C-alpha cells in the first residue's frame, strides 16, 4: 500500500529522547524506576537508541539547569544494564559537560553521544568528539538552534564536526522554528558537503506543530537518524511524538524496525500518566516556535513570570530579541527582573512562598 510513496523502503534509525529531552518537561524529576520502565518498553519495541541523562546532558545537574533526582551515572547504569538490544546514548554540551563525565558515562554503559554546540560554534567540540570516537562511541555532532545559521553555514559547521570524528551530524531545531523548506535547505546542504558515509540526523521540536513533517522532509533530503520521544515528552511543545512518527513511517513504507503498537502503548500507559503538564502547543510554547527561542526556556520563563509579574510570553519574546541561546537560562531570571523594573513593578529581594 506504500509502494507509490517516494520514501518507500528507506531505512532510518530512531533515536528516543523521552528520557533526556523529556527530563526538561519533568523539571528533571524522573525517577530511576520510571526511566527503567520506559527504557525497557522502548527496548522491547525495537527502538535501537535511547538517550538517558539530565535534560542538559552530562554536567547538567546545576542551579542553572535544575537538579535531577539522581546522578547521570545512576540513571545510565540502571537503564544500560537492562537493555537487550537498544544502546544508551548521552548528551554532552562542551562548556557544561566534560570529557571526565563522558568517560564516566561510558563506564556506566553509554555507547553513543550527541556532542552538542550552538550551530555556529562547532569548534568548541573537537576534544569531546575525538574522545568519544576514541572510546568507540557512536558520535553525533549536534548543531543546536540550527535556524540561526544559513544552510551554507550549517554545512561548514557540519564539516568541522566530521573532521573531528563525528559519524553523524544533526540539524537540531531547538526552537521548533523551522519550516519544512528550512529543513530541506539545511539537510540538503549537509548531504552535499559531508562524506557519503557520514550520516545526517534531524532533531525536531513541535512548537509550530511541524516536528513530524520536518522529520519526513529531513529523510527525503538524506537524513537517516531521527530523534523523537514518546507522547512528545520534551522541552517546549515537545519533540516529534515517536509513536505518531512511527505510524507515519509505516504508512510511507519507511523502515524503522520499531513495533508501532508497542510504542503507542508505552506512550499512553507509561508516559502520558507521568506528565506534570500536558506537553502541547500552547500560548507559551507556540511563542517559542514563532519567536525562535530555545525550547528549554519555557518552564524557566513561566517560573520567572510567577515571581516577577511579567508575562512569560513577553519574557520569551525579549529573550528571542536579545538572541539568547541554549545554556543561558540565567538570563531568563535576569531579563524578567530588568523588564519588571522597566515596567515599574517592585522586584522583591526575597522570594516568597
Amino acid at each position: 500500500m506504500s509502494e507509490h510513496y517516494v520514501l518507500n523502503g528507506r531505512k532510518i534509525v530512531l533515536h528516543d529522547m523521552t528520557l533526556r529531552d523529556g527530563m526538561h518537561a519533568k523539571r528533571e524529576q524522573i525517577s530511576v524506576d520510571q526511566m527503567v520502565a520506559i527504557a525497557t518498553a522502548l527496548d522491547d519495541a525495537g527502538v535501537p537508541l535511547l538517550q538517558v541523562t539530565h535534560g542538559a546532558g552530562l554536567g547538567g545537574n546545576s542551579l542553572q539547569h535544575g537538579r535531577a533526582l539522581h546522578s547521570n551515572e545512576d540513571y545510565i547504569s540502571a537503564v544500560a544494564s537492562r537493555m537487550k538490544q537498544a544502546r544508551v546514548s548521552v548528551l554532552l554540551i562542551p562548556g557544561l559537560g566534560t570529557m571526565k563525565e563522558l568517560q564516566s558515562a561510558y563506564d556506566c554503559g553509554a555507547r553513543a553521544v550527541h556532542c552538542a554546540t550552538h550551530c555556529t560554534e562547532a569548534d568548541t567540540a573537537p576534544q569531546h568528539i575525538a574522545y568519544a570516537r576514541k572510546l568507540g562511541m557512536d558520535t553525533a555532532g549536534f548543531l543546536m538552534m540550527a535556524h540561526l545559521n544559513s544552510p551554507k553555514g550549517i554545512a561548514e559547521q557540519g564539516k568541522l564536526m566530521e573532521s573531528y570524528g563525528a559519524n553523524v551530524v544533526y540539524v537540531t531545531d531547538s526552537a521548533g522554528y523551522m519550516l519544512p523548506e528550512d529543513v530541506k535547505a539545511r539537510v540538503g546542504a549537509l548531504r552535499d558537503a559531508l562524506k557519503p558515509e557520514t550520516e545526517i540526523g534531524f532533531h525536531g521540536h513541535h512548537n509550530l506543530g511541524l516536528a513530524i513533517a520536518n522529520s519526513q522532509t529531513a529523510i527525503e533530503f538524506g537524513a537517516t537518524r531521527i530523534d523523537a520521544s514518546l507522547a512528545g515528552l520534551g522541552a517546549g511543545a515537545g519533540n516529534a511524538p515517536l509513536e505518531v512518527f512511527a505510524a507515519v513511517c509505516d504508512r510511507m513504507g519507511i523502515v524503522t524496525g520499531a513495533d508501532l503498537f508497542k510504542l503507542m502503548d508505552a506512550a499512553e500507559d507509561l508516559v502520558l500518566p507521568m506528565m506534570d503538564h500536558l506537553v502541547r502547543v500552547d500560548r507559551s510554547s507556540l511563542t517559542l516556535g514563532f519567536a525562535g527561542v530555545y525550547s528549554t526556556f519555557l518552564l524557566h520563563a513561566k517560573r520567572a513570570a510567577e515571581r516577577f509579574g511579567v508575562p512569560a510570553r513577553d519574557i520569551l519574546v525579549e529573550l528571542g530579541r536579545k538572541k539568547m541561546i541554549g545554556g543561558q537560562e540565567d538570563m531568563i531570571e535576569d531579563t524578567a527582573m530588568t523588564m519588571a523594573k522597566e515596567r515599574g513593578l517592585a522586584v522583591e529581594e526575597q522570594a516568597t512562598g
Partner: protein
Amino acid sequence: MAKVKCALIGSGNIGTDLIYKLKRSDVLEPVWMVGIDPASEGLARARDMGLKTTAEGVDGLAPHVAADGVQIAFDATSAYVHAENSRKLNALGVMMVDLTPAAIGPLCVPPVNLRQHTAKLEMNVNMISCAGQATIPIVYAVSRIQPVDYAEIVASLASKSVGPGTRANLDEFTYTTSNAICVVGGARTGKALAIINPAEPPMIMRNTIYCLTDDEPDAARIGESIRAMIGEVQKYVPGYKLVNGPIFDGKRVAVFLEVAGLGDYLPRYAGNLDIMTAAATRTAEMFAEEILSGAIRPQATEAA
C-alpha cells in the same frame, strides 16, 4: 621613573590587548612579544607598537632576557606549553604571570588574594580564567560573610571574543575555574559553566553567580559585601557592573553582572578579555612596585 621590563608570550587576542594595558602602566614596560608564527598579525602589530618580536617561541626570547632586563613575563599561550615556558624563564629569573588554565602556580584574583602572593614573592602566579576573574570576587564576597556550601558561575561570552585556544580546550577552562571557585572563592564545592553566544551585534560579557549558603543568607550584610567588592574590581575594570540582584531564594544567593571592556584591542563587548588582562596587569604592577622599591628581587630558580 624606572619601569620593570616585560615580555608577552603569545600573540593572540590576550597578548595583543596586554600591550595596550602595559603601555599605560607607570611601572611596567612591554619590550618583547613572543610568537610561533612569523606571519602572525599579532607579531606584526607588536612590532608596529615598538616591541621586539620573535617567532621562535620562548627559546627565541631566552638569549635576550639578561641584556634587555626582562623581569616579568605574561604567558597567554596554552595550558599545554605553559609549564615548559615557565620553567625556562624562571630559570633566568623571570617571574611568570600565567594567563593560561595551566594553574601550576598559586591562583590569583587581585581583590581577593593578591597581597598574599606579593608578600611571598611567587615566581609563577596563575590568573585562572576570564570567568574566574569576573565571578570569584563575588563568591568571596559572600563566603567572607557566611559559609558557602556550593557556588556556581555562568559566563556568557561573545563568540568574537573567544579565541581558538579557549575554544579547543573548554574542559581546561571548566576544571580550572571550578577549582578556583573553591580555592580562592572560599566555596566548599564549585562549578563553572561557559556559553559562547554569536549574536550580532556581539553581546557584552555577562556573568551570573549563584551561591548556596549553609544557613539562611544575611541579605543585608551579603548585599553590602558584594557592593563593596564590586567597587574594588571597578578600580581596575571600570566596566564591571551589577545588573540585577543580589536576590535571595531560600539559601540561594544570585547576582547578575555585566563586564564591559575598555575597548583597547577588541571592542567593549569583550569584557572577558579585558578583565583577564587588567587583572594580570594589576598583579604584575603589584610585583613591579615591590621590585622597584627593592623589597623583592626575582631570583633564578632551579628547573624543577
